[in-house]
């Protein structure tokens, strides 16, 4: 069964600390995405990737880095976490644009930066 798994599901971090959010997909999809969800904004795209070794900036990349070491894994890295990065983060995987493809989402990671 197609799946996108995020870890951790919940994280409390300190301001200035480093945070790594992990995402694993078993769908053999080329593309992976990181979004954050905030009330009133819906989901906003942070970074995405076309495949292993590639990362692209989304609409709100500042303060975030991404890493795609393999087809299955895509990480989001906060080098110096700030309280404004408190949010719920969603990873998704998908394939080339087409009506038969729609991105699949993970369950989310709830991050609090104190």
């Amino acid at each position: 069964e197609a799946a996108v798994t995020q870890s951790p599901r919940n994280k409390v971090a300190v301001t200035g600390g480093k945070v790594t959010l992990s995402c694993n997909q078993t769908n053999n999809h080329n593309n992976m995405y990181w979004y954050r969800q905030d009330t009133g904004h819906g989901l906003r795209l942070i970074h995405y990737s076309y495949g292993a070794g590639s990362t692209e900036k989304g609409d709100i990349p500042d303060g975030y880095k991404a890493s795609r070491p393999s087809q299955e894994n895509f990480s989001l890295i906060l080098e110096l976490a700030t309280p404004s990065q408190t949010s719920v983060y969603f990873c998704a995987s998908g394939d080339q644009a087409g009506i038969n493809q729609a991105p699949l989402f993970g369950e989310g990671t709830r991050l609090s930066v104190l």
Partner: protein
Amino acid sequence: AQSVTQPDARVTVSEGASLQLRCKYSYSATPYLFWYVQYPRQGLQLLLKYYSGDPVVQGVNSFEAEFSKSNSSFHLQKASVHWSDSAVYFCALSMSNYNVLYFGSGTKLTVEP
């Protein structure tokens, strides 16, 4: 630039009533359009999707949506809602590049008994 607008942040309906959740998009060509649902503390689940063909598209759990190019809209509808339909609904669009989705701000649906 592309954008999606969901003008209603919250909608409350009675169980058994009909439902319409509104979605307007802005994009120069015909986009791929999606509706997702999010239940509390869960990820997003696809309800339905559209690109071309019949402007009325059927989805899961008796939801349907109607595409209107003239109105740049993709409204979600259901004939009779159930309490379990209470959730947040997101409209999204994608252009032809790599399935990047652009989301509206979401509509929180509450179904009252």
